[in-house]
């Protein structure tokens, strides 16, 4: 009996693995670092070096998508727009609600570890990654994880690449868990007595409610409910508040960072803290997403001050306006001590010669 053909539906695009491996091997042999580029949509995150670019934008298409398996495998140069459209056509979605940033690719989303407003309730980009193909610093195309939900064979090197900004290798393919689009959605608006206080949301999260997003702008709270129509209706009564019109556009604008709040000349910072953290004493304008666990700050404050404040509440900060910062200022919360040494050794294990994206992420990991 032969193994039945794996359903390789919706195959499309172009497999550029060979060319990418060749380019990496050439970079290794000539000791020339490379700058990995997908849709060129995230140059505001981290510092792009002036090294030669390795383009993944021609490495596109769906490798495998079987909706009833709840898994999609795509080449990393696939535009987010295209992937979202395919999933939506099948009534499914990437539950971590990643940003599109117009020309962004799925590879870029995973390399930067970006998740949207649903993150505290549905999980993050790394949570939905099941497997990955990557090129390591020896120029080898490796496969970690797979296309199944449960898989504990070998170290979880696939999830390790999520949010590593390409400094551990070139992402080739990713397999991700997908979920059905919820039947109904409703966003409620409630007024707070004090701005930027998350206590109400933290309490609400302890109740069995189908909350799928929660944000605060100044003294207004926005709570999104998702699920069956009956569940959303019942939960709305428990939550209270006024229904918001055009809520989809509101959440889209938070996800894509183009809400009016972001239209401001001052540098943008992202501060990741426990959601129960009290309002932080940093001067500027705030937008709290992820129930308060992801806080955006528009400010002229020194980087050092922001990093210190984030560390003081066991969080970390990163700058989302790299072009506005001095070359000497770190864009990510600096690592130190034993953690820095360990992370450097992890980097060594994938890219000992620092071929991939030097300078892009934590420069202290480059040495």
């Amino acid at each position, binding site marked *: *009996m032969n193994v039945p053909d794996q359903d390789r539906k919706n195959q499309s695009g172009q497999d550029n693995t060979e060319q990418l491996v060749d380019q990496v091997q050439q970079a290794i042999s000539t000791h020339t670092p490379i700058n990995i580029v997908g849709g060129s949509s995230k140059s505001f995150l981290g510092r792009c070096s002036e090294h030669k670019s390795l383009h993944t934008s021609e490495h596109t298409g769906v490798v495998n998508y079987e909706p009833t398996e709840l898994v999609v495998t795509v080449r990393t140069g696939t535009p987010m727009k295209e992937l979202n459209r395919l999933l939506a056509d099948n009534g499914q979605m990437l539950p971590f609600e990643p940003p599109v940033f117009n020309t962004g690719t799925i590879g870029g989303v995973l390399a930067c570890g970006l998740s949207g407003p649903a993150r505290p309730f549905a999980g993050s980009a790394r949570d939905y990654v099941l497997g990955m193909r990557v090129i390591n610093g020896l120029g080898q195309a490796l496969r970690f994880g797979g296309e199944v939900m449960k898989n504990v064979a070998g170290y979880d090197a696939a999830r390790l690449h999520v949010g590593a900004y390409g400094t551990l290798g070139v992402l080739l393919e990713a397999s991700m868990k997908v979920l059905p689009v919820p039947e109904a959605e409703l966003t409620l608006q409630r007024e707070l007595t004090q701005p930027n206080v998350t206590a109400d949301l933290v309490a609400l999260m302890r109740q069995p409610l189908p909350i799928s997003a929660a944000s605060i702008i100044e003294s207004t709270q926005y709570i999104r409910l998702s699920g069956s129509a009956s569940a959303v209706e019942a939960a709305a009564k428990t939550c209270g508040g006024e229904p918001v019109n055009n809520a989809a556009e509101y959440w889209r604008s938070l996800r894509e960072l183009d809400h009016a709040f972001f239209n401001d000349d001052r540098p943008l910072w992202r501060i990741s803290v426990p959601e129960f953290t009290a309002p932080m004493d940093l001067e500027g304008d705030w937008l709290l997403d992820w129930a308060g666990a992801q806080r955006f700050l528009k400010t002229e404050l020194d980087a050092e001050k922001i990093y210190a404040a984030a560390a003081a509440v066991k969080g970390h900060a990163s700058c989302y306006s790299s072009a506005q910062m001095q070359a000497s200022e770190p864009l990510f919360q600096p690592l130190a001590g034993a953690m820095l040494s360990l992370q450097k050794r992890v980097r060594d294990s994938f890219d000992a010669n620092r071929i991939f994206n030097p300078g892009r992420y934590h420069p202290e990991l480059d040495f």
Partner: protein
Amino acid sequence: MSSHAAQSDQPATPDMTAKRQEVAVALATLVPANCILSSSEELKPYESDGLTVFKKTPLLVVLPETVEQVQAILRWANAAKVPVVARGAGTGLSGGALPLEHGILLGLAKFSQILELNTERGFARVQPGVRNLAISDAARPYGLYYAPDPSSQIACTIGGNVAENSGGVHCLKYGLTVHNVMAVTVVTIDGELLEIGSNAMDSAGYDLLALLNGSEGMLAVVVEVTVKLLATPPCAKLVMAAFNSVEDAGSAVGEVIAAGIIPAGLELMDKPAMEAAEAFANCGYPTDSAALLLCELDGLEEEVTDQIKKVSAVFKSCNVATLRVAETEDERLLLWKGRKSAFPAVGRLAPDYYCIDGTIPRGQLPYVLRRMEQLSAEYELPIANVFHAGDGNLHPLILFDANIPGETERTEALGSRILLLCVEVGGTVTGEHGVGVEKINEMCVQFDEASLLQFHAIKAAFDPDGLLNPGKAVPTLQRCAEFGAMHVHHGQIPFPELERF
């Protein structure tokens, strides 16, 4: 379960006795004397974990009481180059906590305190020796629980859950350990204490938390874990559906998901498993059917009521033979009881059984079950199947009698063959039990040489001298070469009577 690794308990040689003495003296300067076990009676209970076909006596067992002691022990082991195997409750099924004769066994049983139960902020900070179920028990009065529920949850500890990235019947909807752990504090082999993760939703630098989960004690020793607590769903209902063919049951699973429903649990049993469970638990399974699905739905009452209607309609469209919705909580628990006792129930059918743990793409289930029927006939060993159908995790149970010469070896060979079948259809050799020593050969088939070398490089980044749980989880290339040479025709091992390496 590979026979070449299984060893009988050898009497200690004079060399070993001297080494044991020497290590005991050294450790006595680091921990109180009552934390060190070195007599053969004391060591006996530690010679295996849940996979009892493997037994080895450790050099000695040390049961530290404080994090500082763990740091001191690892610092000493690193300097003396003595290997260390960490152990929780010892319920693992892949031999991950199998001791090493020349290594110390680091038992974390004394770390059994819940350090902080924060019901307002929805997390618990616990020591690694806290039992999985104890967390949910503590949180329950506050309407909260810890989601991953491996079937050994009454006994297994959270430290072991992190090491194995344990799952459970509810993980399609609520995720694995990796999705529910917010932070761990670990001690590295050089005695350094590191906090990985936090109460924030991500951390600076690489996601080492993801890497630690499922690393089988090879990278660091976990001394504290912060887990997420979720709000208990107010309503849970169970639908039982029996089908006249496994194909119908399999397609029903796909159709439920195609209808946009993610059940809290979705379990499939084949006829032999169903019959055994029914005989054991008298739960009312229709044993004249070919396959049984248990589909649990949870959430707000309104949502569950809707979903039961939808799911019932889906099953009817898939030629369901018997359809029942548990009307009462007692009935729901009784129907679950059959499934949850499937292992001991199958255990009554034969003197021994061996549980396999592979994952397959769900659509491959009918093919895999047909193929397993053939293999069962070929190896002359009956197989019963329970299947976490929602996430494709298959647990074939091979029935055998270890007292019949050759039967254990035939069982091993069949088990290995089934794991390779899982890889063949695009799956994996272990869904939730871990590689340990049990599936180390099959890793050679699932991963190529370069990927295995990358795993070794990751290990070296944490543990350059390979002192933490060496020999587990990731095979050496030499071992794969030997296995490959041996494994020319899928399980048709030449000279099966010869001792292998």
